[in-house]
């Protein structure tokens, strides 16, 4: 089973067993290292394979699956971009930006209201908002689709943005509220004495103080919106409005697929998120850690 079984934690101060401990530690390190490297390889290799296969021609892809491209067809990436990925990419950027901005604005306002005020029915509102976290989006799929059609929003950017914002808000509010609660109140109190009203406190104290959590919320909401598939599949039909995940599916023809181009498209759409994650790891991690456990 797990390599943990192979070793035994031995207290350092028992000098008679230091040598044995050393050997065991080395063995433990070695086994774990092999195990984790294999796992890491299982993750990295397919992604590299994806990017490389995106440079192959169809026959090269089928006949020499494992080898490097015979001819490095950078044109595949360009072809994928021109075949729609470019447009889908921009759509994704637009939908994600607007949704995230709305989530941050509305979410921070609500979180402020829920963390700094006391009013009747507050707990009910809180429970209502937070229970939005649990609901499966499938349940809303058909009614939302009819609703959007009824509102005349079906097949517009709004058909994606509004549901995205609504479904991302509960988690954002939850994260921001717990963070705002931990912001010391002394500052505000003195501000109030200075004559600030609640809007000013929100804008000049809470928002600047809450920046770290707002950044984390932006990243998490952005990631969810960027990757969302089901709503994007059902709520828009024009290719001019399609986001990347659905656009990728559409690129795949039934009778005749150029796999090189398809894989290039996949690589193009996977990359921004991987890069964003590696660059902003700290904020990602903070969001996760704040959201997962209390405090």
């Amino acid at each position, binding site marked *: 089973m797990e390599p943990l079984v192979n070793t035994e934690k031995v207290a350092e101060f028992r000098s008679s067993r230091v040598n044995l401990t050393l050997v065991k530690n080395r063995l433990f390190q070695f086994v774990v290292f092999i195990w984790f490297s294999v796992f890491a390889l299982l993750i990295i290799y397919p992604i590299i394979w994806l990017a490389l296969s995106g440079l192959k021609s*169809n*026959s090269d892809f*089928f*006949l020499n699956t494992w080898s490097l491209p015979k001819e490095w067809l950078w044109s595949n990436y360009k*072809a994928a971009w*021109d*075949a*729609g990925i470019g447009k889908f990419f921009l759509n994704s950027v*637009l939908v994600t930006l*607007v949704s995230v*901005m*709305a989530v941050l*604005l509305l979410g921070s306002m609500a979180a402020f209201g829920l963390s700094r005020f006391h009013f009747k029915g507050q707990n009910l509102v809180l429970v209502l908002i937070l229970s939005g976290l649990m609901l499966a989006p499938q349940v809303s799929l058909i009614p939302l*689709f009819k609703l959007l*059609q009824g509102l*005349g929003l*079906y*097949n*517009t*950017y*709004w058909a994606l*943005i509004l549901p995205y914002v609504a479904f991302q808000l509960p988690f954002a509010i939850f994260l921001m509220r717990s963070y705002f609660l931990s912001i010391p109140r002394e500052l505000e109190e003195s501000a109030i004495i200075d004559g600030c*009203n609640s*809007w*000013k406190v929100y*804008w000049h104290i809470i928002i600047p103080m809450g920046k770290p959590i707002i950044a984390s919320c932006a990243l998490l909401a952005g990631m969810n919106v960027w990757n969302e598939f089901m709503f994007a*599949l*059902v709520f828009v*039909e*024009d*290719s*001019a*409005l399609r986001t990347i995940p659905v656009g990728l*599916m*559409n*690129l*795949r*023809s*039934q*009778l*005749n*697929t150029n*796999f090189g*181009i398809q894989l290039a498209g996949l690589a193009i759409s996977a990359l921004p998120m991987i890069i964003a994650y590696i660059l902003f790891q700290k904020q990602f991690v903070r969001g996760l850690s704040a959201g997962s456990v209390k405090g």
Partner: protein
Amino acid sequence: MKTKLVLTFMLVFALLLAGCSSSSSTKEDESGKVVLKFLHKWPQPEYAPYFEEVVKDFEKQNPNIKIKMEAIADEPIKDKLRVILGGNEVPDIMFSWSGEFARKFVRANAALDLTPYLNEDTAWKNSFIPASLQPFTSDGKNYGIPLRFNGKFFVYNKKIFEKYNLQEPATWDEFLQTLDTLKKGGETPLILGNQDPWAAIHYLTGLNQKEVSQDVRMKDYNPGSGEFTDPGYVKAMELLADLNKKGYFMKNVNSSSHDMAKQLFFAGKGAIMYVELEEFADMDKNMKGNWGFFPMPSIADGKGNQNFITGAPDGFIVSSKTKHPKEAIQFLKFLTSKENSLKLVKEIGWPSPIDGATNPDTALKEVAEGVEAMKKAEGMAEWLDTDVHAKVADVYLSNIQLLLDGSKTPEQIIKEVQKVAKQVQSEVE
């Protein structure tokens, strides 16, 4: 102060709203032009340019009309079309398969009756091969205009056939012998990519037609009277299952898609494959003359007409809600004009339903021959998955994979088909 902040927020939000709506598509007439929304199913870079060009030409000739073109790929459009038809902005002209797929929209009064327009312009009507208009009719009225005339044929690798001294089989028994010879020689006789199960359903389309008499089959394919009790349905499925049992199909048919399987055929890893006429151009590009084709062989004791060919036209229906039926027809006429049909054949190698457009000068020799074969055929067996009610099709589609991986028998599947057909019957009334 307070109000100012509120205002700022509202402004920011309003800007956001405005920023978005201005970039979303506008559907209203601009500068008094008639705007037609046109939906087809070929977004792939290979085909989309053809439609873009035709639309551009049309707009040049008709400056008062603007075409707003949309494309949704093959699989998704099967779901999307229904959704779109229920929406507020139904395209004026939209793609449809023929047969039940189109008739379902006719029943829901979503498709415009095109008969008067065709009768008004007999030259246009007569330019079509009659067999290509027929599948788009319901109760004697025309509801669709075909763009392509698609048929299904077996293509084979000539070198492999020569190696074993094989001829194109004309009967099912000869076909089986051919496959057996290939198998014994260590070849993969049949290439099939059935990840998307329409591929095997196309086999069954022809087999059903050949095994079941025409009247019975037409009655069963009609959602209002479908029973599927004829033993021919089981027999048809058994023929398909036998091909699999005898090991004539390649391995793992359910996990390769049709396009992947085709790559195997191109690489010479199999002898025969069942493909559509529209794929012939691709075939020739990759096989470079090393290929031939034959229709599904006849079955000696089959009750259906053995001179049918599997295939169907596909094309366009016009929405009953359109505000501009005249302009829509005008565009369809342009799309199916001789000139554009020749272009269709030449540029993307598709078989055209316009009589004479697909000839050896414009098209690949094989495509022209294929269209000729379809013209000579006594009828068409339309795709089973678009020719029966969606729910019946769904039973066929999902079970055909289980037939091929051996977990269900033909009898079991037909029983399910019968059950669902009964249910459909009660709902369609």
